[in-house]
């Protein structure tokens, strides 16, 4: 897959949908394409986070460790972004993400992410929008749980 195809994939991700293609191309060019094999972990719960991954192809399980052993809490697939929380705030990875089948990702290092955000404010605004959406969704779930 070439850079242009990666840019096309990135544009399908809501976080990047509104961003100038040249910027996305720079981000794709500066980031590393990383292929995970079946069973390999994109990130591991408790580890320090140094990168986020954008899944271009394939599926992965989100697993958290519980007292009763690993618990699969969600699944992620293409166009999803994983691990962004740990690079925004310095917390250890909150879950393990494990590839189910081959997974092709773009690895966005913390350094690259912050540079993109600070150089191109429109990316920052998009990140805020996505996080606000997620907060809103969590609040809703909380309300439902209480009510």
């Amino acid at each position, binding site marked *: 897959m070439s*850079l*242009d195809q990666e840019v096309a994939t990135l544009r399908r991700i809501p976080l990047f949908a509104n961003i100038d293609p040249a910027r996305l191309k720079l981000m794709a060019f*500066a980031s590393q394409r990383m292929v995970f094999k079946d069973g390999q972990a994109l990130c591991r719960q408790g580890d320090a986070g140094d990168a986020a991954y954008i899944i271009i192809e394939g599926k992965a399980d989100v697993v958290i460790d519980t007292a009763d052993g690993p618990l699969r809490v969600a699944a992620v697939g293409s166009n999803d972004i994983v691990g962004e929380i740990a690079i925004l705030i310095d917390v250890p990875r909150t879950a393990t993400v494990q590839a189910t089948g081959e997974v092709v990702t773009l690895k966005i290092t913390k350094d690259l992410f912050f540079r993109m955000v600070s150089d191109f404010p429109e990316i920052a605004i998009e990140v805020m929008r996505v996080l606000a959406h997620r907060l809103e969704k969590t609040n809703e779930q909380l309300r439902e749980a209480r009510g």
Partner: protein
Amino acid sequence: MEPNLFKYVWRHSKRDQLAILLLVLVSLPFYFLSLNLPKQIVNEGIQGQGFESIADTTVHGRIELPLSETLFGEPLLLFEGFRLDQVDTLLFLSFAFLALVCVNGVFKFVINTSKGRLGERMLRRLRYELADRLLRFRLGQLRRMKGPEVATMIKDEVEPLGGFIGDAFVTPAFLGGQAITAMVFIMSQSLWLGLVAGGIVLIQALLIPRLRIPILRLGKQRQLTARQLAGRIGEVMDGAVEIHANDGSNYERAELTSRLGRIFDIRFEIYQRKFFVKFLNNFLSQLTPFIFYLGGGLLAIYGQLDIGALVAVIAAYKDLPGPIRDLINWEQQRNDVQIKYDQVIEQFQPTDILEPERQDPEVAAAALAGAVAVSSLSLIDDNNVRHVDAVTFELPLDRHVALVGDGTSGKDHLTLLVAGLFPPSSGKIRIGGTDVQDMPEALLGRRIGYVDPSAYLFATTLRDNLVYGLRHRPLREAEQDPEALERWKAQLAESRRAGNSLFHLEADWTDYEAAGCSGPEELLARILEILEAVDLEEDVYRFGLNGAIDPAAQPDVAERLLEARDALARRLADQDREDLVVRFDAGRYNANASLAENLLFGTPKRPDYAAEALVDNALVRDALERAGLSALLGEKGLAIARTMVEIFADLPPGHPFFEQFSFIDADDLPEFRQLVTRAEQRGIDQLPTEDRRRLKALPFRYIEARHRLGLVDDAFAAGVVEARRLIAEAVRAKDPGAVEFYDAGTYNAAASILDNVLFGRLVYGQAGAEEAIGTAVRETLDSLGLRPSVCAVGLDFEVGVGGKRLSATQRQKAAIARALLKRPDLLVINQATAVMDGATRARLVANILALCEGRGVIWAIERAALAERFDTVLVMRAGRLLDQGGFAEVSERSEDLKLLLAED
């Protein structure tokens, strides 16, 4: 050192000086003959004086015994001479002239080279003596001196002495002789005029040197300021970090400016005075003829002096000012070099300097035994600070002792005193009953290991640094071919003449026995064992992987590394991970390697075959042309330029992305933008050559798998493989040896060990590939028993100036390893694990104490808690020893230790 330069020179070179003097004397008659000959040629040979006619003959070459007529009443002929007519005379005299020119030339050549050699020998001796003294200085003295200043003294300030020493005795003898001859002649012609001339010479000789005293004083200042400038520049280099970190560069500029200003003032004043003296000197020289003309003329007019005598006096006087002036100049030079000499040796005469006997390498260094007994030991520095205050203790030598205390406790000074590196102000340290201060360095340096926190390493290989503690004197003469042996003998003879060291640097100095080994192989095993203990083995292994071996010198290692190459491929295949390395295949394009690597398919051994030079390499260009890639290369370059211009357009120049990712410098980006526009409008073919070159240069660093611009399609890949074949053919034919080609069955001497074992490129974009390959390589090398060979290569790592290519932690580990390797009876460690993290330090303490089982260790340790592992703990505060004993009991009763433990 001898304070008088003349006595120093005379003592060491009187035979050579006398030989040169003799040579000068022998050469003089020939010189005078050659002066007279032109006149003779004109008068006799050409004008025919003494010849009646062209056929007449005269006698030549008649030699009488000098003074024979006065002694015996008649001349005694030694040689009757021969008769020649005018033409033959001209021929004879002309050839005699030519012969004299040759003889004088040879004399001059021999005299000058003898003087030069003599000067250089003395200079070599002087420099050696200064360096020798430097090696005998006490550490306290050395700490007060600036390295660059000392370097300037030894290198530059004594340099003029070399030029002067050859003339030191010859010149005054020669010029003095000339001047006296002229004076005697004048005196014999007219006593009065002679007295006048002598008087003025006397005034010159007394006045001029006096006037030159301030110049000499200024010269002294010039020398000092220049030396300080050198010291200051050294300081600017050493303090580079502080200067940049504090924006101090402009202060430094002003500081240097003020120094340069002072040097300028001094030098300019020297010029003013020097030229005034010159003026005065010239004036006095011309005053004498004035008196001769006036006084002598009057005397002649009144008939009291014969005109012929006056003319002769004036003619003789011509020969006087020259030698006098040169003599005065010589005197000036003599004063100058004497001052230089004084100023230099003054710095090399400290009150306390080690006696040469203390550094005698042949002294027996028997093992230390008994106890370390320290009695009322004190160390007071120049500022009256008591670093160590009346410390007394006695411990058996096999004890492991921890010194604990805070930064001002004096534990660091105590280690320096115990290691015999600093003389105490009072008190004594005895080891096995002998005062450490009386021990020769052969004993201190071989039986005691001292590790300083600064952990200085010399700018050589890691191996040389580690075995430094085993090299005290040449033990086995180097194996040399007869020619080298002859050369070495000549060098040795010359060293002896200059009083230099007679030790052969090329000999084998390594004392294997001291390390408990029988030879180089065992020593390597021992070094690796110690590196393991100080936690440095893994680093050395990694240096080794990136190092190279010479397969011609180590064919067996190369052979086994080739085995490892296949074994690694098999291991990866077994693990189903062969996709992690894309192996080199002569028939395939490797998408994980750059275009340059793909074209060359080998390791460049000459700079004109390096990746960035390939675009200008005619041979490569030709191959690309023939493979039909030339135009394609321009297109690929344009595609890269277009993408770079597009995606980097909005970034400010200096953004780190440029350096990390871009193919084009930020500064060149605007130019490339125009270039892309022009190329798109007109086509690449229409661009000027230089622009086309710039585009074509871009793809050489392009790696398809990493940069993902989709530039390498099947057709291009096939073209590159074809070009690769053509390049290989052409290189083998025209530039053999310029490239070491990849070949699955041959060891590549130009590539690193890792590259040889991988024989391919790590695949881009596979998660965990690097770790997996690292492990696989390690396991493969281990299973083939190659790890020691790789580490041996790692030991050849050049550590850089002061070991700066190693991290601070690595330097400290290397310094500890250096001390451990010589198996000292007493290991003294002065906070040499200061920069390590806690876990590493704890591990090191355990390993080192285990290695030194049964031998003494005194360790000024950074963390009091670590003292628990030692037999005895000494608690210090403000230079005083407060408590000592086992850790358990002392930690019970000593408040200080409790406090230190709480602070940990």
